[in-house]
């Protein structure tokens, strides 16, 4: 293999040396979920803005998935109503905290890293349990405030 490479380099030295050889077109077999349409009404998956995971939109336990199940990061595209795509911020939204509905379901509170806006979304069935618990115990691991609150109790 190394010999072939050296041969090719030698032939390049004769002709055009600085021009890069163009890549041949490749045909890649993709799963149905990642057929290239990442935006628009027919999109079936989105790419996470933080960990670049390809996330299918259909998942167990949620009808409105807006965050990556691996790192829980979201994207600031919605305005007041979830799904209205009214915001032109497009900033990355990091999971800031966890809240609980009265029926016991968890909500992830996202905060936009570029404009500071907040949004809340229900957890999906395949969200990373370890990442969820890490966010949920973060108030207790913030040592100074938690200790002060506990000592005052």
């Amino acid at each position, binding site marked *: 293999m190394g010999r072939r490479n050296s041969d090719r380099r030698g032939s390049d030295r004769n002709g055009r040396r600085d021009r890069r050889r163009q890549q041949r077109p490749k045909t890649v077999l993709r799963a149905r979920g990642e057929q290239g349409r990442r935006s628009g009404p027919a999109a079936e998956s989105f790419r996470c803005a933080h960990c670049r995971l390809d996330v299918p939109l259909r998942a167990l336990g949620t009808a409105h998935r807006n965050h990556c199940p691996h790192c829980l990061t979201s994207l600031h595209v919605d305005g*007041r109503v979830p799904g209205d795509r009214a915001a032109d911020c497009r900033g990355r939204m990091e999971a800031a905290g966890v*809240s*609980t509905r009265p029926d016991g379901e968890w909500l992830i509170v996202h905060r936009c890293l570029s404009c500071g806006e907040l949004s809340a979304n229900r957890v999906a069935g395949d969200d990373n349990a370890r990442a969820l*618990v890490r966010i949920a115990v*973060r108030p207790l691991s913030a040592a100074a405030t938690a200790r002060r609150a506990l000592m005052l109790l």
Partner: protein
Amino acid sequence: MSTTDPTTARTQQHSTRHRRTRNTGDPSGRAGRATFGCVLCGLSVSVLGPDGEPRDHCPSCLSSLHVHDQVEDGVSDCDGRMTPISVVVPRDGTWRLVHRCVRCDELSENSVATDDNPLVLMRIAVRPLAEPPFPLEMLGEV
């Protein structure tokens, strides 16, 4: 006479509404006031906290009032009560309180004052861990 009656009624209604928002801590009415009344528990709360920071929620029940519009970043005319739903921690390690409006479901984020009720704060902070959506004892095997 019949045309003036609704007008006076409307002005009376407007004035009472204006007085109500001033009493409950509208920021435009806050400037000259030293206290505001909590919308939920009725506690009379001083506008400035113990460390001189302006206060926007009741230190006893942690309820707030929806007067700031976070989407358009101006004054909101909702005036709904905002209940505390979550404690979030930024990178500097301080606690911040997230409120949700009971009327329009909008969220807001406030810093925690030093004299906020620690029982309610701790209850909001540990509430998710008390009702996990999956068994927490399985986490060691994930």
